[in-house]
């Protein structure tokens, strides 16, 4: 595997190697390495996984197995403004599904997809810990509380100006 055909530029590869080194190239630290790598790249494409497998002296299949097991890791890039709808129980009983439907309708994407212009991606998460504000929507780091289906277009509007 010494000569993997990488589309990543050399600088990114060495950043990745540094991350692995930080954890002593220990494959027991794979999940920590993946967290850092995803932080760096925004997602974990196959090439990144291969470099990590190589550095930690494990198989790419093992790395892939771990990446796909955990929902926090993603192999597709997120939109410029990642939208997450809380689907925790508290939000669900206060109407999160209707809010989600409205996002899907306006953005014309399904959960897990990104709009063709790369601006928005849509995902669900479980309980942000702000159940008092249910239903809750997060755009990037910003939390919107007590969102009604009517309010959805205003939220999207804030990011399309």
């Amino acid at each position, binding site marked *: 595997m010494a000569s993997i055909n990488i589309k990543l530029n050399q600088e990114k590869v060495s950043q990745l190697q540094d991350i692995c080194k930080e954890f002593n190239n*220990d*494959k*027991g*630290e*794979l*999940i*920590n390495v*993946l*967290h850092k790598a995803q932080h760096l790249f925004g997602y974990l494409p196959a090439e990144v996984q291969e470099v990590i497998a190589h550095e930690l002296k494990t198989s790419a299949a093992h790395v892939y*197995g*771990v990446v796909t*097991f*955990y*929902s*926090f*890791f993603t192999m597709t890039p997120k939109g410029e403004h990642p939208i997450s709808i809380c*689907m*925790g*129980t*508290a*939000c*669900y*009983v*206060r109407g999160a599904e*209707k809010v989600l*439907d*409205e996002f899907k*309708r306006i953005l014309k994407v399904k959960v897990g997809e990104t709009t063709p212009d790369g601006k928005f991606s849509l995902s669900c*998460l*479980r*309980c*942000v*810990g*702000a*159940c*008092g*504000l*249910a239903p*809750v929507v997060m755009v990037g780091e910003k*939390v919107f*509380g007590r969102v009604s*289906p*009517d309010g959805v277009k205003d939220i999207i509007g804030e990011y399309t100006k």
Partner: protein
Amino acid sequence: MAKFKIHLLVCGGTGCRASESEALFHNLKATISEKGLENEVQVITTGCFGFCEKGPIVKVMPDNTFYTQVTPADAIEIIEEHVIKGRKVQRLLYENPETKEKVVDSKKMGFYRKQLRIALRNCGFIDPENIDEYIGRDGYMALGKCLTELTPEQVIEIMKKSGLRGRGGGGFPAGLKWEITRASKADQKYVVCNADEGDPGAFMDRSILEGDPHSVIEAMAICGYCIDASKGLVYIRAEYPLAIERLKTAIKQAREYGLLGENVLGTGFSFDIELRYGAGAFVCGEETALIHSMEGLRGEPTVKPPFPSVSGYLGKPTNVNNVETFANVPVIINRGAEWFASIGTEKSRGTKVFALAGKINNVGLIEVPMGITLREVIYEIGGGIKDGKEFKAVQTGGPSGGCLTQRHLDTPIDYDNLIAAGSMMGSGGMIVMDEDDCMVSIAKFYLDFTVEESCGRCAPCRIGNKRLIEILEKICKGEGTMDDLDNLRNLSQVIKDTSLCGLGQTSPNPVLSTMENFYEEYIAHVMDKKCPSGQCKSLLQYIIDAENCVGCTACARNCPVNAIIGERKGVHVIDQAVCIKCGACMEKCKFNAVFIK
């Protein structure tokens, strides 16, 4: 805390931060410096007060004034009126919803009156980023006492006598677990804190870690002393950035004070703590899966025995306890096993923290003595059902639990009673539902979660739950038959009996308990093709009442799919073939002309 005359405590929990409590904090600080009051008034950020419904919260001490829904712009008024002139800002005070009276002293609020805060003792009182404040409230005293006055066996004896049971869901006696782990011989052992908190709609552990991280650190060290471990690991969800930050800060401070690291307090005992991050998999809350995840593997559970206490992390004896379990430990050591055991019921001692949410007036984090009734929790602490609706059910135990109904309102809450009632304690999620919630949909919601989170290792859970949800979907679409109901029951039983781990063994509970308690709703979906609460879209129709319709066209203009036809000033009609049942017309109609059939 001595030199300041007035303390302003601003909630820095996740919920309040989402409503700009940070900006509020900065404004308060700025106003105080502007007025030159830095030496008299102190502002600190604390952990969650629990009263998330009305956040952001500002509490003024020493007079216990409790301001709710405070905006950053209110900072000036609080300083000028309350702090300088000594006049409470009336409009920000909490108002008793029944008497409409303003509550001046938070101790008099119904929300707090019935609570007893042990695990949450410091949340909302101290600055979680300052170890001195924790120490000021007897922090690390228990650790000192254990290391200098008690043998590990004596500490374990205290834990056993206290009757503390695991708060992560299983309810296994904590003292006994420590004893078993102590008895396992090995060169290295581990203390693990389970902070994975996967139950959707629950945030107890997160609030403890955000509001009082040192209590967990102290307890882990005590546990390490008892079982002979020098290493502790906290497995925490990556989705909890604030809790992670606070924990990191706390560990660093504890090291600086010689409370973690080599030779703790000069006693020769060494203990240190590292963090491990979860990555969004519910099953990793299960202890064997959690251990595999910490080893960098897929978080799949394995068969027990061997239990982690015998063979856990890297094959070494590992004591896994939940965050809340740990948070109780220092108080038990300080105040004694007898004191703790005097609270609660015979088989469930102490208190339990619940995340109370859903259709309830006071959403928030509460801690109550075991044995309290659901009625007290929902009506006295929770302030009753939102918008004056009818109570229908309360769900405890998350995806592994079940729904309790009107019949159970007076059952004392403890581990065994909840199981007898067809639910379970779980980690502490408590979701209240009203007349508008469809119980078939709720069962489907939880199953949806389980199917997504099943690790796929064993067939009953991987395939069985998928079949369960397909049947539920069919029923919600009005295509269900009576045979489907039998199949639901039988299949549920098989999944429970044959799954490998706790996830599969409990996943059918939401189905079974709703079938048990709300069978008539299932029948209505299957036989009458109706959803009594009007939630299942396929089973309802939006109709315009010709008598009430004045032809204002509001509905037609707001229909996203143009399903409504009609002339201005003429009666409008909804084309059922086009309607997507979004309900926009009903919301927009000012004349109550749209109804659901």
